[in-house]
């Protein structure tokens, strides 16, 4: 259950970013979460909904791009994607494999409403 810590860190980062900006509200938050991060998206969303009440990002839509594991075998060069990291190449059974993707935990972008709609 480390989802709440992650939500707190995410909110702190967004609140800090909003300090010097003319944001009315944050309406959408897009994250990249690697499959090796042991994060349950529904729990992350639940924590966010609870914690964001009364903040600039209350009611924002949390969009989570789940990044599957990408693993490369250093022995035979085989590259594959998987839901679990089992540490063995399905082609040559080597255990000399490397995790390329799956540890991501990134705030990709935000969608915000500005306070004063500028007309030009």
């Amino acid at each position, binding site marked *: 259950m480390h989802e709440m810590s992650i939500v707190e860190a995410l909110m702190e980062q967004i609140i800090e970013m909003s300090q010097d900006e003319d944001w009315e509200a944050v309406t*959408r938050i897009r994250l990249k979460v690697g499959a090796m991060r042991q994060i349950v998206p529904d729990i992350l969303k639940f924590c966010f909904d609870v914690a964001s009440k009364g903040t600039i990002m209350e009611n924002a839509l949390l969009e989570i791009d789940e990044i599957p594991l990408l693993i490369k075998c250093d022995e035979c060069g085989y590259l594959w994607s998987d839901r679990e990291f089992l540490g063995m190449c399905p082609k040559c059974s080597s255990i000399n494999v490397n995790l390329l993707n799956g540890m991501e935990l990134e705030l990709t972008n935000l969608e915000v409403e500005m306070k004063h709609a500028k007309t030009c």
Partner: protein
Amino acid sequence: MPRLVNVKKSVMAADEEHASFIRSMMKQKGVLMINMIGSPGSGKTTLLEKLLPKLNLRCAVIEGDVATSRDAERIAVTGTPVVQINTQGGCHLEANLVRKALRDIPIDDIDVLFVENVGNLVCPAEFDLGETFKMAISSVPEGDDKPLKYPSLFHQARAVLLTKVDVLPYIKFDRSAFWRDVQKLNPGADKFELAVIEGKGLDDLIGAIEDWLKDIRGN
């Protein structure tokens, strides 16, 4: 009109800054910092109790627990400087908490800093504390399937300890399956078997700690 703001920054960026601060501090001071991660009851504190008096190095301990200072009290008996962090419900330590605790650690006078994380195989693996490396601690009674069920920790750990091997005759535990799975997840890990109460395996671990310290000090 909604506006799109590109960020592309780690969610944990603020805490990662604390972690890199700690990592450079340890590097500069030549301190080996070990982040000990294992289930509640896997024997992390008992290991420290038995290890510290035998280790011919200057050590300090940071104890992470949800509540109480029981573990710190047990460590204090060994005469080792110890700081207790209570996470008040938090299931893992974070670098900002460790950085605060470091104020009470005599960092200039130690060789090794042990950080005993909150007992949990999941969350502590996901937070960098600025440690030299993570040490996974798994005990025989927990079962031989722990590496595959908690791959993130066993994949990252530089050292894997199997504790309580003295109860192997009484428990259904496939020792070779346990180590085979560790090997698959983490071919480079140093592996240890211990029965701490009897003192079994402690000398191997002590030798390894001395080697790791030499490694980071480049001699």
